[in-house]
């Protein structure tokens, strides 16, 4: 791999000029490797939800920034995230994505066993290690825990560097989008339901993330799907009750004015959400039984405040996007510079009527499945970018819609008009800040 950026912070700074960003950020393999090291391992990234491991021995295995990780519930009920890497010869100890390992973890190769907190328990023929220094070696660590772990309303995040910002510093008030999602449960509890939709994106991970708060594309890219649904429905009498799928499709082809007035809120460190004032989820049919359950749980005033917060997408940069109003989350796992896995989960509001779950399930399938007619046109556009960027005539990508150089240099956090590209600029400010560090622990 060519070394153009590793020891060259000024070259990295030169990739972003405020209103435009260099194409290398999407297509350069060295930058991708540096992103994993400097952005993904130093930021707080989403691992999973604690409802995926309710009982002792339950585990969920995943890979983040090339690191094999294991989220597991210990005997004491504590949730831990360990490196899924045997202390002996390095094999991944857990082989399945999820399950229950019983009381111990056992490596499939030589049978070293570990307690659920990751400490080394037994080694076969231990006598063979007498006097070898095993107890003082790296292997004595067992399955190491990640350097930093935070669980917020059931959402499990890790930071893979020893030094770095605290969870609170990193997310700031953007965490209110997770709070609103959890508050929408009359019991305050959420549960992941079933398996995630797993859509392989043949594009750089940032193209997906940037699209979540891009409000200038739906009326263009989704005309073929949502516009078709609109046309199919338009001859129905005004009083006809809209099927749920029509209700969910129609707002995608709302006007520019609608998306502009929706508003976008920017936080430090790359986080943002659209739908400050209202969103594409605002006109869904009322669910009186659910609203009653919310009033009973929270009181009328508080219940109204929770349900009136109808945000569009919140980006928890760089790994998670949340849609509280429809209880779906999308988890971003970069695989290569031009390959990204997006896993979309549905959450149950524990204590809410089943109709809400059905609405979330329907939305997730319509929008996030590899067979989604909405997803097909998004994916196509990402791919067109990934291939189009090779065009050498122009090495720069424009992100200057509503750019205000003097205003943004003074600090970007705040509320903006919904069609601004300010969320992309906020992401690149965070990106540059992380990438110019030397990747050493700090």
């Amino acid at each position: 791999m060519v070394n153009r950026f590793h020891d060259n912070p000024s070259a990295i700074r030169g990739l972003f000029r405020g209103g435009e960003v260099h194409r290398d950020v999407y297509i350069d393999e060295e930058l991708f490797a540096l992103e994993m090291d400097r952005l993904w391992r130093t930021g707080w990234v989403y691992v999973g939800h604690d409802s995926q491991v309710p009982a002792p021995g339950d585990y969920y295995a995943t890979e983040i920034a090339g690191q094999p990780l294991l989220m597991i519930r210990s005997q004491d009920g504590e949730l831990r995230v360990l490196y899924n890497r045997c202390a002996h010869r390095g094999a991944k100890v857990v082989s399945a994505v999820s399950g229950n390992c019983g009381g111990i973890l056992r490596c499939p190769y030589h049978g070293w066993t570990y307690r659920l907190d990751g400490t080394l328990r037994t080694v076969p023929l231990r006598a063979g290690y007498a006097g070898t220094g095993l107890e003082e070696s790296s292997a004595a660590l067992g399955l190491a825990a990640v350097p930093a772990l935070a669980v917020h309303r059931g959402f499990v995040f890790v930071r893979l560097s020893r030094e770095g910002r605290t969870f609170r510093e990193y997310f700031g008030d953007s965490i209110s989008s997770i709070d609103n999602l959890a508050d929408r449960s009359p019991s305050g509890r959420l549960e992941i339901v079933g398996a995630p939709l797993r859509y392989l994106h043949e594009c750089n991970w940032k193209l997906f993330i940037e699209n979540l708060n891009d409000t200038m594309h739906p009326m263009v890219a989704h005309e073929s799907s949502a516009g078709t649904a609109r046309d199919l429905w338009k001859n129905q009498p005004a009083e006809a009750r809209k099927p749920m799928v029509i209700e969910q499709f129609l707002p995608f082809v709302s006007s520019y004015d609608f998306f502009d007035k929706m508003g976008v809120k920017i936080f430090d460190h790359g986080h943002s959400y659209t739908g400050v004032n209202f969103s594409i989820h605002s006109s869904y049919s009322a669910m009186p039984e659910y609203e009653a359950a919310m009033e009973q749980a929270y009181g009328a005033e508080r219940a109204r405040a929770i349900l009136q917060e109808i945000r569009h997408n919140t980006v928890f940069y760089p790994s998670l996007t949340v849609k509280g109003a429809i209880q779906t989350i999308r988890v971003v796992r970069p695989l290569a510079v031009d390959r990204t896995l997006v896993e979309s989960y549905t959450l149950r509001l524990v204590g809410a009527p089943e109709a809400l779950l059905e609405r979330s399930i329907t939305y997730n399938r319509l929008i996030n499945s590899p067979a989604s007619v909405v997803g097909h046109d998004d994916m196509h556009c990402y791919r067109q970018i990934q291939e189009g960027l090779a065009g050498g005539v122009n090495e720069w990508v424009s992100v200057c819609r509503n750019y205000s150089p003097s205003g943004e240099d003074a600090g970007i956090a705040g509320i903006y008009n919904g069609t601004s590209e300010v969320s992309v600029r906020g992401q690149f400010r965070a990106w540059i800040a992380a990438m110019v560090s030397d990747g050493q622990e700090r």
Partner: protein
Amino acid sequence: MSPVAGDQELIDLVYAEARLIDEKRLEEWYELYAEDGHYWMPLTRGQQSPASENSLMYEDKLLLQVRIRRLASANAHSQAQPSWCQHVLQAPSIEDRGSITRVAVLRTAFLYVESRRDDQQVYAGVAWHHLKRAGERLVILLKRVELVNCEAALPSLQLFV
């Protein structure tokens, strides 16, 4: 109790259904479905319900119509370069001939290829057809498509398996 249809008529419908997709005669294909018919592609093995768990597809006739009209639309950018597909079916086996009160059920193992210029995806699985009478016609109440790799990370799957 008389079955839903003769064996050959049941089997012929399964073959005809796949052929109409492969030839992109999708409006004719759509007419094979009962008014309350569904096309379902579960996300997990043995999945019980499309309403309480994620599915890759679960479409009533309204959603099928959206999909078919989109494919014909000039705005469907992902199909500006069109996809084509080919089903290769094993002989359908009749699992239940059905009756006046029961649908007929057929099981058909398949290979499915979806291609778009230089990209080609190959899938394998089992399709279950639930067939019933609607007047003189034999119609599909449910087509359940079980991909062998339903839990895998998949790229865009744009036509009908």
